[in-house]
C-alpha cells in the first residue's frame, strides 16, 4: 500500500495532458475519463461540509448535522458561520486590516463556501492542497476581488498540478497543525520521528486515515463530532493481543492502547475568550496558555465512545461496570467564554471586533446578530473539554506495571470507581515485584 502510493506520486499518468493543457481545477482531474465524479463526491464529505450526522453525542437536535461549521465550544469560540472569513476592521493603532476567519481551513474558494453544492462548488475545490507536493502557499491567501468579495486563493499552477500524488503528512498538517489559533495549539501533536513511532517507521497520515471515496476515517474523540461514517482504530492493524508479554495483553480488555502508549499530551491547556491579548502587530488574540508536544499529562477516564455534552463540560461517558467501557487518556482543556445567563448556554463569538479592538463583548454581539439572538445576558464562565489523545505513540516510554500499580502512580483508582480495598491491592508492589525483579536480572 505504501509502495503503491510512492509509485503513483512519481509517475502520474495525467502528466502529459496537464503539460499540454495546464490546470483548470477539478475539471482537469476529471477530463478524459480520469477520476470522473470525484468533485461531486467530495462535496458530501466532512472536509467540504464541516458537518455530519453525529450519532454518539448527547443533547443534540435530532436530524441536525454538526461540525466546525456550527459548533460552539471554547477551543474555538467562533465557527464558520459567526466567524466566517472576512477582512478584519483596521487596528486603531496601525490602521492596517487583515483577513481571518474559521473557514480559512476549508478547501474551497470562500465564494463556494463550507457545505455549498452545485457546479460552482465542484469547480472551487482545491484538490491540490491535499495532493500536490509542490504547492505554493503564497497563492493560498485571502484577498478581495474586483467586486469586493473576499476570496480564498489557490495554487492552480501547472507546476503544482504536475506534482500530484498521495497526500503526504505536510498536505494534512497545512490545516491540522494550525487548528485552534496557532501552530500545534488544538491537539498539540507534532507528527515527527522523535515524537511518534509510526512517523519513525515512515508512515504518513493516510496510511492510517486511508480514505475511501474521500471519506476519511476518524475515531471517537469526544470533541471531534463530525465524521464521514467510517472509523480507524489501533486494532485495525495491530492484534488485540499485540504483546509478547501476556500480562500486558490481559489489560487490553479494560485499558485502551492509547492509555499506555500515549503517556503525554500537548497543545493549549487553557484559553480565555473574555480577555484578548494584544500582539506585536497590534491585533488581539484570545489569551492562550499552550505547551509543547509531550509536555502535559493526560487525565484518565472510562469511555464507552458516547459523549456527555453540557454547556460547561464536553467529555467521555462510561463506567467501570459497563463492559464496553475502557480507560482512555484525554488531553484536558479549559476555556473561558461568555455564557447566556438566561439560558445557561455558551455564546459564540465573531472574532473580527475583538481582533481589532480587544472588545470581546462586541464579538458576542456580532455573533448573536448573525444567529438572530435578540436577548441575552453574557456572563463569563468556564468550560472543560476532554480531547481524545491518539497520536504521539511511543513504545519505549509506554506505561508499564509500576507506573500504574503504585501509590503515586498515574491512575487515580478511586476516581476510576475502584473501592478503597481494591485500590490498596492495585497499588502494591506485590502485583509486579517478581516480574520486574526477573526483568531487572535479565537487563543487567
Amino acid at each position: 500500500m505504501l509502495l503503491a502510493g510512492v509509485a503513483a506520486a512519481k509517475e502520474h499518468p495525467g502528466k502529459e495532458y496537464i503539460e499540454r493543457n495546464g490546470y483548470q481545477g477539478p475539471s482537469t482531474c476529471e477530463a478524459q475519463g480520469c477520476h470522473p465524479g470525484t468533485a461531486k463526491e467530495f462535496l458530501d464529505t466532512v472536509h467540504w461540509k464541516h458537518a455530519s450526522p453525529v450519532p454518539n453525542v448527547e443533547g443534540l437536535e435530532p436530524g441536525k448535522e454538526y461540525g466546525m461549521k456550527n459548533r460552539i465550544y471554547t477551543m474555538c469560540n467562533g465557527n464558520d458561520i459567526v466567524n466566517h472569513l472576512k477582512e478584519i476592521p483596521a487596528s486603531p493603532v496601525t490602521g492596517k486590516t487583515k483577513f481571518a476567519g474559521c473557514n480559512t481551513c476549508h478547501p474551497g474558494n470562500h465564494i463556494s463556501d463550507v457545505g455549498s453544492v452545485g457546479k460552482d462548488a465542484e469547480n472551487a475545490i482545491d484538490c491540490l492542497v491535499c495532493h500536490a507536493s509542490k504547492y505554493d502557499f503564497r497563492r493560498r491567501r485571502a484577498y478581495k476581488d474586483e467586486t469586493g468579495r473576499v476570496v480564498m486563493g489557490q495554487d492552480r499552477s501547472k507546476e503544482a498540478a504536475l506534482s500530484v500524488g498521495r497526500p503526504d503528512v505536510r498536505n494534512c498538517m497545512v490545516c491540522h497543525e494550525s487548528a485552534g489559533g496557532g501552530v500545534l495549539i488544538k491537539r498539540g501533536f507534532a507528527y515527527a520521528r522523535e515524537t511518534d513511532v509510526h512517523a519513525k517507521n515512515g508512515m504518513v497520515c493516510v496510511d492510517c486515515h486511508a480514505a475511501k471515496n474521500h471519506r476519511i476515517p476518524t475515531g471517537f474523540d469526544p470533541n471531534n463530532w463530525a465524521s464521514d461514517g467510517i472509523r480507524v482504530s489501533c486494532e485495525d492493524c495491530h492484534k488485540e493481543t499485540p504483546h509478547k508479554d501476556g500480562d500486558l495483553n490481559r489489560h487490553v480488555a479494560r485499558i485502551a492502547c492509547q492509555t499506555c502508549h500515549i503517556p503525554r499530551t500537548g497543545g493549549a491547556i487553557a484559553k480565555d475568550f473574555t480577555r484578548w491579548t494584544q500582539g506585536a502587530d497590534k491585533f488581539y488574540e484570545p489569551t492562550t496558555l499552550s505547551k509543547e508536544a509531550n509536555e502535559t499529562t493526560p487525565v484518565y477516564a472510562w469511555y464507552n465512545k458516547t459523549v456527555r455534552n453540557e454547556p460547561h463540560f464536553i467529555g467521555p461517558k462510561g463506567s467501570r461496570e459497563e463492559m464496553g467501557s475502557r480507560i482512555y487518556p484525554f488531553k484536558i482543556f479549559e476555556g473561558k467564554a461568555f455564557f447566556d445567563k438566561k439560558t445557561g448556554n455558551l455564546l459564540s463569538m465573531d472574532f473580527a471586533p475583538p481582533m481589532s479592538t480587544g472588545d470581546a463583548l462586541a464579538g458576542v454581539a456580532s455573533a448573536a446578530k448573525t444567529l438572530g439572538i435578540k436577548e441575552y445576558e453574557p456572563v463569563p464562565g468556564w468550560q472543560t473539554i476532554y480531547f481524545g489523545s491518539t497520536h504521539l505513540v511511543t513504545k519505549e516510554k509506554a506505561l508499564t506495571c509500576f507506573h500504574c500499580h503504585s501509590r503515586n502512580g498515574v491512575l487515580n483508582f478511586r476516581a476510576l470507581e475502584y473501592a478503597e480495598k481494591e485500590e490498596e491491592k492495585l497499588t502494591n508492589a506485590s502485583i509486579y515485584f517478581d516480574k520486574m525483579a526477573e526483568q531487572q536480572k535479565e537487563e543487567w
Partner: protein
Amino acid sequence: MRNTMLVGWVAAAAILFLLFAGGVATADEMKMVGDVVKIEISGPNAKTAKATLKDTKTGKLVTVIVNDDLTLDKFKDHRIVVGDEIRCKYEVQDGKNVSKYFRKTAGC
C-alpha cells in the same frame, strides 16, 4: 565517618553546581517576536536557511540560522513568507544564532 560523608556531600554539591552552571551556559536561549524581513534559502534541496527578523520590541534586526526540516519546508513552499510574525527561540553557537523554535504567532 562523619567527615567522609561531609566530603561526599560537598563533592556532590560541587558536581551539581558544575552541571547546573554548565547547563545554563549552553542553554543560553534567546526569545523574541519579530516580523520576517528576509529569507535566504538556496533552492528546494537546501538543508539550511537564514532568516532575518525585525524584533518588534527593540526594532533591531536579528539573523537566525534555520536547520530544522519542518521550518525549511515552510520556507520552501512559502507557508512562511516575508511579513509574517514569528515567535523565535535561538541559541548563540560560535557567534551564530541557531534557531530552536520558529513559528508563526497567528493561526486561523
